[in-house]
């Protein structure tokens, strides 16, 4: 597994401080991040991919500083957003998966082979030539996952990947995340998604207020919500 380190990280959007003094070392296979809306958990997740650069402190992935080596870090870290509509770039399903690989300098045959394999893995083979925008919400999120994982990142960060999905599709995405060999970091409000995770971190007002097993952390979070 990769080692992701937050070293005295703080961040503010203008006057609004969203993260304060975060010190973390993430080495487990499956890590969950929970917290109320506006607690700073999505900002924390975005920092792992370099989408947000900390105002203070540093974030590293396997020793690579995300602020200085963003390109290299993004090859290691894939990112899934809440709304899959916002990450589909190409008009058809297979083209969108292939789009990720086209930037990697692979041959056309290799791109076709890998994108076809991804289509089969994520159950999208029968939709290969279908317009991506006509897929169901669950299929779109599967496509978003396929388009990221086809590049074989070492780490997958997902920001509320099941929020817009019905229970069946949410479970499907959850099962996929449990079956992945990659290190998975999931921001979520849905506790069921975190069953069997190795570690859950609770963020409140930009600070880590609980960090441990899913049972202990979620008990702490439930107490905060009560």
């Amino acid at each position, binding site marked *: 597994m990769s080692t992701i380190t937050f070293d005295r990280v703080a961040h503010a959007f203008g006057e609004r401080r969203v993260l304060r003094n975060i010190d973390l070392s993430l080495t487990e296979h499956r890590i969950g991040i929970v917290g109320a809306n506006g607690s700073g958990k999505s900002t924390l997740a975005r920092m792992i*991919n370099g*989408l947000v650069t900390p105002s203070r402190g540093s974030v590293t992935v396997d020793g690579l500083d995300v602020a200085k080596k*963003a*390109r290299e870090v*993004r*090859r290691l870290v*894939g*990112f899934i*957003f809440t*709304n899959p*509509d*916002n*990450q*589909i*770039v*190409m*008009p*058809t399903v297979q*083209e969108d998966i*292939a*789009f*990720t690989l086209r*930037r990697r300098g692979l041959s056309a045959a290799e791109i076709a082979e890998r994108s076809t394999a991804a289509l089969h893995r994520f159950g999208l083979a029968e939709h*290969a*030539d*279908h*317009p*991506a*925008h*006509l897929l169901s919400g669950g299929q779109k999120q599967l496509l978003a996952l396929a*388009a*990221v994982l086809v*590049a074989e990142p070492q780490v997958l960060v997902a920001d509320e990947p099941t929020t817009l999905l019905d229970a069946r599709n949410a479970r499907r995405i959850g099962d996929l995340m449990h079956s992945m060999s990659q290190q998975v970091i999931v921001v979520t409000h849905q506790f069921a998604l975190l069953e069997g995770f190795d570690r859950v971190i609770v963020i409140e007002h930009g600070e880590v207020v609980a960090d441990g097993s899913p049972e202990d952390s979620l008990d702490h979070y439930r107490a905060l919500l009560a």
Partner: protein
Amino acid sequence: MIGLYSPGRSWVHRAPTLLKLFMLSIGVVVIGLLQQPGQLAVAAPVVVALFAIARVPPRTAVGQIAPILWMLLIVVPIQGLLAGWLVAGLMAGKLIIAVALAALFTLTTTVTAVLEAFQRMLRPFGRWIDADRIGLLVALTIRCIPLVAEIVTEVLEARRARGTRGSLMALAVPVVVRSLYAADALGEALVARGLDD
């Protein structure tokens, strides 16, 4: 272009995109120059044969041409009264055949193939033009059409639900704001997928 591709393995599908684009250009020019109904009567079966070779389902093919029939319902009578019915008939025939040829290109060519063809065409100008960026720009433009259409539909529904049916502001403001948010999110997703290098 938005999801019109009709998958297949015919030689029309497999023909090089640039060749298809070139043949389409030549075909449209030649159709435009035809002056006799007899010439159109020869061209039309050729186009039908191309659709048959490409194994495009008849319903799909008709679906591509049907929208211009509405326009012809208005234009042909006007043209007939002003310039004569022969000219109006020729104009309608030429338009239908030209649109059918363009539709055949769209139905048998993926967006990726079109982008790659554009990139190949622009490569000699690489010193001045970033062909990959132009390709990405075209892809995003095509992709954003259904995205914005969906936003407009949702805003129209919300407008109806709130009883502000006649208000243009109640349509324009949320559509623009949501489109800007969507553009921002799409940009962030492109960065996350490594498109900022």
